[in-house]
């Protein structure tokens, strides 16, 4: 059985995408903390250390750190290891730029706290055009 939760959100970068959620109430720099060749988080001690971003809906607090975040995202996109969508609590200008340049949908300002209602492994659909996030819970 599956149940769908629909959450209103503000579309930042337009587009729609779906994937398996990867969730951490944490910040992330793409340069220096993500390897674009493998798509994995390499930051030591980060809650997502070792996890692959490839094809995932990345649910984090915000990006931080290096200004090369859009570049690393572009390289990951070319290598086929980039996330398919972003759900961010706050919008860092670098995540916004990276998602625009690479046409990766991004939403923020969810009506529910994403860290309470989205778990790693949930199937998530991000519709930044309509401002909706759909979370499919499966048992």
């Amino acid at each position, binding site marked *: 059985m599956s149940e769908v939760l629909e959450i209103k959100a503000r579309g930042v*970068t337009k587009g729609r995408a779906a994937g398996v959620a990867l969730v951490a109430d944490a910040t992330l720099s793409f340069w220096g903390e993500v390897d674009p060749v493998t798509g994995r988080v390499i930051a030591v001690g980060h809650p997502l250390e070792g996890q692959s971003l490839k094809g995932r809906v990345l649910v984090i607090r915000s990006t*931080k*750190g290096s*200004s090369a975040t*859009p*570049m690393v995202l572009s*390289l990951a996109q070319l*290598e086929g290891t980039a996330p398919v969508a972003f759900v961010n609590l706050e919008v860092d200008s670098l995540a916004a730029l990276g998602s625009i340049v690479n046409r990766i949908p991004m939403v923020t300002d969810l009506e529910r706290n994403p860290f309470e209602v989205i778990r790693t492994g949930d199937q998530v659909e991000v519709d930044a055009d309509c401002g909706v996030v759909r979370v499919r819970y499966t048992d």
Partner: protein
Amino acid sequence: MELTPEQRATLEGARGPFLAQCMRWLVEWGEVMGARRLIPVANTHVLLPVPNLMARGASPRTIETYVGGLKEACRHRIAPGCYCTVHTLFLTLDELDVPENAPDQVRLQREVSELATLAGFINTFTCVPYLVGNVPLKGQICAWTESSAVVYANSILGARTTRHGNESALAASLLGVVPEFGVLLDENRKGTLRVEVSAQLSSPADWGALGYFAGKLAGLGIPVFNGVRRPTQEEAKQLCAALATSGGVSMCHIVGATPEAPTLGAAFHGEAPAEFVVFTDHTLRQTYASLRNFTGEEIDTVILGCPHASLREIAETAELLRGRRVAAGVRLWVDTARGIRAYADQIGYTAIIEKAGARILCDTCPTNMRMAAQRIVTNGFKQAHYARGMLGAEVIVAETSACVRAAIAGRWLGDE
């Protein structure tokens, strides 16, 4: 966002597809960040790196496509009247003993660098443009990459730049405009987090610790440091770099020291919040300890100069190394800009440093290359933070003289 007829025409392709794409990036970026218009930009600093991924197994097509984009950009001229600097990496990589890196890296980077010069960019070869002549004035609208330099420009110089990526800074350089949002506007330059400093800060690395601590708490906000003396240029450099490592900070205020914070109230544009966090001597020690993950005493690498070393830091390093010798099997690299290196050559610091078995490295830094390093001692919190993941190394961050003592001894001797 409201565009002028000329801006709209560029967006619709009147100046060709590449500039149309640049305009699209700036307009869409501005719209999502809440900008209402594009405003003239006086000064840009762009990173034009050939990604160091060849030796890591990236597909040749990835490098070709990305570098192709940089070359395409450099076929256009920078906007008239805009002072545009770039930082290219790796040009001296072939002089170093790091065979782990692909030699093609250097060839491609040289091509991009030459094209950038033809486009009108001035190559600074550094992450610290403000130490080699790109020093924007208070209030000047800029478009800078290099997260550490962004914080320095806003906080220490009082210039105004949002956190740019290569793409937006390139677009701004070619089009001469930036979307007006964030810290470009007065109302977004007020403090969001009050940090009372009771710790005794006695070195640039200590200021790095303060930044590393506060950046994590500030997130995308603006920390205000109170109760602390005026930093030196090198201390400010470390503070700014660390703030943009643990956080996504665009600027900070230091009460009584930085241009927009004559008083605590002024830093918050009115009333200072009653709530604050305290940075004590204990917090300082804890912050150093939080990054240290050494499992033994032996070291193989000492890195000074993240962000790139100033001439004064090179002078200090030369003094510490005069008549001494770096231990066999240990590399001590001082990373700096070519312009600063040229002074060091002329004055004689380079000779002293090289006689001791250490090197002055230009253009780049170890986190932008592949190298075998297991145990690194560094005076930069930013370097230490990223080296753990990017180089898979164990790190210790310490003030400069402790780093140099470790290099001479070949092992970590402690801070004192």
